[in-house]
């Protein structure tokens, strides 16, 4: 029996009049990689951004349904957004480090929480950078600007930045779409390593990538969750005709 980290219950989302997500219901298993795949515009990024309530900032958004994390519905009014986003980290499509030093980038999440203990902060930054496989490349220049790093390094810095708040879940929004194949391979390996300590939810355009690294896959089509299951099964014997057609490259 797998333990579930996040439960999505009857999630509906509208941007203005347009319904983007329709009755999405599934559970994301703990300490596994769950991939969300589907054609462009199917709502996969929108779904991902529901997990840390990043859609809240968009104008005219309406959300119905529940997402349960640690037994609580994150869409309840009493939810503290800051704490939620520390528990649920996010890495974006394009590397977006702040124009600050490498150290300050990683320390950012803790600093906004008012974390003052200098020694502990240094330790956490070091550990996060090690966990993101970046430490050896930057340990001698923690005070130089993050903008000097290569794209792949910047993306690993963003992962370190997300890890620093010790999250339970990390959301990856097509994290390799702006990277070259080598950097992509490294991030893929890293996500596999990360699932030892955190739950990974990854949106990807790249079916090959989903098949390579994910344990579970959700196929989203026109805002509906068409199929969800163990990746191996979904990719070899899809249950739904639409999944089969999508994987076979009939549309996309």
């Amino acid at each position, binding site marked *: 029996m797998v333990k579930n980290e996040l439960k999505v219950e009857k999630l509906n989302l509208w941007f203005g009049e347009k319904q983007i997500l329709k009755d999405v219901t599934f559970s994301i298993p703990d300490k596994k990689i769950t991939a969300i795949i589907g054609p462009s515009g199917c709502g996969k990024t929108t779904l991902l951004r529901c997990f840390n309530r990043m859609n809240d900032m968009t104008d005219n958004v309406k959300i119905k349904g529940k997402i349960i994390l640690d037994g609580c519905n994150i869409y309840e009014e009493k939810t503290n957004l800051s704490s939620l986003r520390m528990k649920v980290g996010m890495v974006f499509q394009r590397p977006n480090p702040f124009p600050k030093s490498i150290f300050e980038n990683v320390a*950012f999440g803790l*600093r906004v929480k008012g974390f003052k203990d200098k020694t502990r902060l240094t330790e956490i930054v070091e550990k996060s950078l090690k966990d993101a496989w970046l430490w050896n490349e930057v340990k001698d220049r923690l005070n130089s600007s993050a903008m000097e790093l290569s794209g792949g390094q910047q993306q690993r810095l963003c992962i370190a930045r997300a890890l620093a*708040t010790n999250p339970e879940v990390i959301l990856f929004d097509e994290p390799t779409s702006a990277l070259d194949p080598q950097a992509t391979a490294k991030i893929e390996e890293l996500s596999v390593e990360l699932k030892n300590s955190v739950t990974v939810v990854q949106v990807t355009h790249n079916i090959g990538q989903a098949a390579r690294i994910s344990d579970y896959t959700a196929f989203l089509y026109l805002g509906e969750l068409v199929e969800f299951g163990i990746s191996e099964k979904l990719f070899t014997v899809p249950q739904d005709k639409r999944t089969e057609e999508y994987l076979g490259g009939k549309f996309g």
Partner: protein
Amino acid sequence: MGLRKLKEILGINLLRLTIFISILFLFLFIILIFAKGAKMLSFSFLTQPPKSGMTKGGIFPAIIGTLYLTIFSVLFAFPIGVLSSIYLVEYAKKNFLVTIIRTAIGTLAGVPSIIFGLFGLAIFVITFGFGVSILSGSLTLGIMILPVIIKASEEAIKAVPDSFREASYALGATKRQTIIKVVIPTAIPSILTGAIMSIGRAAGETAPILFTAATFYTRKLPTSIFDEVMALPYHIYALMTEGTAPEYQVPIAYGTSVVLLGLVLVISSVSIIIRFRMRRKKKW
């Protein structure tokens, strides 16, 4: 084929001609001002008050006056301008009221400077009772440069990529923290550029201080912000229009012009150096 080539050559040379004309006037301008004014420059010209009915002596009180007026007007307008632009970009919704505010700021930028002078006279000098003083003049100049600072800061804040804001929110930062820790530090070099432009304007304008701060002649230096002062642009104006001995006074006016240009250049250079340092530190 030959015709197209010809058109191409004609076109590019037309562009070259226009840029040449712009630069020509700039050079003529600098040469003229310096040729007529540079010979006036001396240590005593910069450090002495005017003497003998402003036909001799220096322009020290005017330099000090302009420095005060410029510094105080920027001190007044910079915080208000930057905070307004933060509100406009980060908080204001797109509604009727905000459209009116934006239009008002745009209009303010186009108001002739003499109107600001009259406004300053009515409000600060008379209604508030500040008199003809550094305070009245600085506030008037400050209101005049406010739209410049707001516009420049708005552009600077808008230019901060949304991906930075998203990253900050995703790490648990609040809107306020995002603005203070991410948006402003990223935008500050460009915001300072706006401030630099406005410094040049504040130092050089005559009309806004005409009725609010400037005096034709005073030997003493201001001791409080309620004192009236001499100012470089007004000094030039006064020498050229009210002088009784043009053969002595016109050269002094040109000398004053060189000093005014130099002063603006120095203030700008200092700001540019600060900005450059910040940028280098940020590597952004």
